[in-house]
């Protein structure tokens, strides 16, 4: 008969015999962070974004130091100046300094983009968590609503809403977020459904944990990686949408500068002042590129299998 008390002792890894090659275990977050750090392109892109954000936040300081101009200051005599001194990137039709306007424009664009991300993540996550966790009729109801929002062609929704609610930065963010939250909700719901099946949820419930506690303390942390990845990947698109809306005149209105509205009339000035068309566009491109690259790096860091 097998005598349990006489079974040989189990040796744990880390025991002092030669050839032991066990590595210390790391938390999921640490591992992901390590992977992110190792991705050089991602890090470079992330640093660039940080710099852009810094410039945006500290816009007045930067413009004071670099250009000494106010973004709305018109100096009609100096209109259409090519890049040079003292207007480092030239001036537009009203003599306003391009570089300064780009700096302040960054504030607008990045500000709206961040706000949009926050709004759509918040709404989307809440709906997704509720739908996924409670299931049944609530799930059906919420997901139908999401379907509706996802079915409306985004562009039309933007146009309608921009016309109806005179947009400032906040309403613009709300408008753009109104289209994106649906995708987030679906994503979160999917994740919740798969996590819900796992045993630790059953175990927690059997101990009598309240719903809210379960959702916040157990489901939410598991859903966070997906959110982070979705946010990083989505920022680029949001910036492009925001710029397009501004360009069409449906977003931030002049004289507040934004990268998009700096291009609204630039077409007609192309011949003699080509820089007016090039600079804002290139700025948008670089920003979106950096944020896409960073987003890719984040996604690879959190889920290397997807590579």
């Amino acid at each position: 008969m097998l005598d349990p008390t006489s079974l040989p002792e189990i040796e744990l890894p880390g025991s002092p015999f030669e050839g032991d090659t066990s590595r210390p275990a790391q938390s999921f977050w640490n591992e992901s962070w390590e992977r992110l750090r190792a991705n050089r392109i991602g890090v470079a892109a992330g640093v660039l974004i940080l710099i852009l954000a810094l410039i945006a936040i500290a816009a007045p300081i930067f413009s004071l130091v670099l250009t000494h101009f106010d973004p709305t200051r018109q100096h009609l005599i100096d209109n259409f100046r090519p890049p040079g001194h003292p207007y480092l990137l030239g001036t537009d039709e009203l003599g306003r300094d391009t570089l300064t306007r780009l700096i302040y424009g960054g504030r607008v664009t990045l500000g709206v983009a961040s706000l949009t991300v926050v709004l759509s993540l918040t709404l989307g996550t809440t709906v997704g968590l509720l739908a996924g966790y409670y299931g049944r009729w609530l799930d059906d109801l919420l997901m139908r609503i999401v379907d509706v929002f996802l079915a409306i062609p985004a562009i039309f929704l933007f146009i309608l809403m921009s016309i109806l609610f005179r947009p400032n930065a906040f309403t613009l963010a709300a408008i753009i977020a109104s289209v994106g939250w649906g995708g987030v909700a679906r994503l979160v719901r999917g994740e919740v459904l798969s996590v819900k099946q796992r045993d630790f949820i059953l175990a927690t419930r059997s101990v009598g944990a309240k719903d809210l506690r379960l959702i916040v303390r157990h489901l939410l942390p598991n859903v966070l990686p997906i959110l982070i990845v979705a946010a990083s990947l989505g920022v680029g698109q949001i910036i492009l949408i925001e710029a397009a809306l501004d360009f069409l005149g449906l977003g931030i209105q002049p004289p507040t500068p934004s990268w998009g509205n700096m291009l609204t009339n630039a077409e007609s000035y192309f011949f003699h002042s080509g820089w007016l068309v090039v600079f804002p566009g290139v700025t948008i491109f670089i920003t979106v590129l950096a944020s896409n690259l960073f987003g890719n790096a984040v996604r690879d860091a959190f889920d290397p299998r997807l590579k």
Partner: protein
Amino acid sequence: MTTPLLDVQDLRTVFDTKEGTVKAVDGVSFQLEAGETLGIVGESGCGKSVTALSIMRLQRPGRIVSGKVQLKGRDITKVSDAEMREIRGQEIAMIFQDPMTSMNPVLRVGFQIEEAMAAHRRFTGQQARDRVVPMLQRVRIPAAKERIKDFPHQFSGGMRQRAMIAMGVSNEPSLLIADEPTTALDVTVQASIIELLRDISRELRAAVILITHNMALVASLCNRVIVMYAGRIVEQGPTRAIFKNPQHPYTWSLLRSMPRMDEVGKERLVSIRGVPPDLGKLPTGCKFHPRCRFKVDRCLTEEPPLAEVDPEQLARCWVLMKNVPNPEMQS
């Protein structure tokens, strides 16, 4: 001396990783005659699957760096890609571990079996199509005629594996390699699959290489056994001899960790301490010594060669179990 069907000579396959070159198969040699069943056993990562894949030249992204694999006297590590493709599926066939992922989910089962035959010149397209139903019947899949139109997910696990076997033997290969054919299946189904393999290989008079970590399977199917550890052969010989008189401590531990019906109450189950080695950071001397209960000083510094300990039985050990007086007492 007749040429053996398969003659593997000092096969070495490596993988290039970020941490350096890993020797997955490090000098493996064995021979196989027609009609023989050879078992290759070992823990995960010991190199048994890579050996099989190397024989098929499917080892990518690994590289075969040296050694020979002679199939009926022909070194197939050196033949062209086109020639190798002819050999694959026709002379040598391989059956993989997980039948669910090993079959294309969007193509019908009948088509995938037909494909196996149509890819080679032995059967014409029409002949291949005609052979599909008989093949399925041979592997005892009921209602074969209707089943050929089904998709893999409509089959049960055991039936999928049977279909894989049908795919494998459809060209009547001389060598059949089965890589853990029952590991992904329910215990109740395993026995029937093993029986099927035995019958078919006997019928074809094919040589079989059975890769597994399940010693019980080896006992029931194989004439000879090879025990692998860290990419090397540590023991090989006839199944009976190995089971009765394992000479390498690793083999001995493997057998001792298995409960046996005929020895109830006699011995304690013993586990092998430690973890499988990291092939990138192997110790000096004998690769098994960190986990060995019976080591002596020499084991830490010098790697033993694979030497004959009995007629037909080889082991790679300085100590050898026959020289250990009371092995169960040492734990």
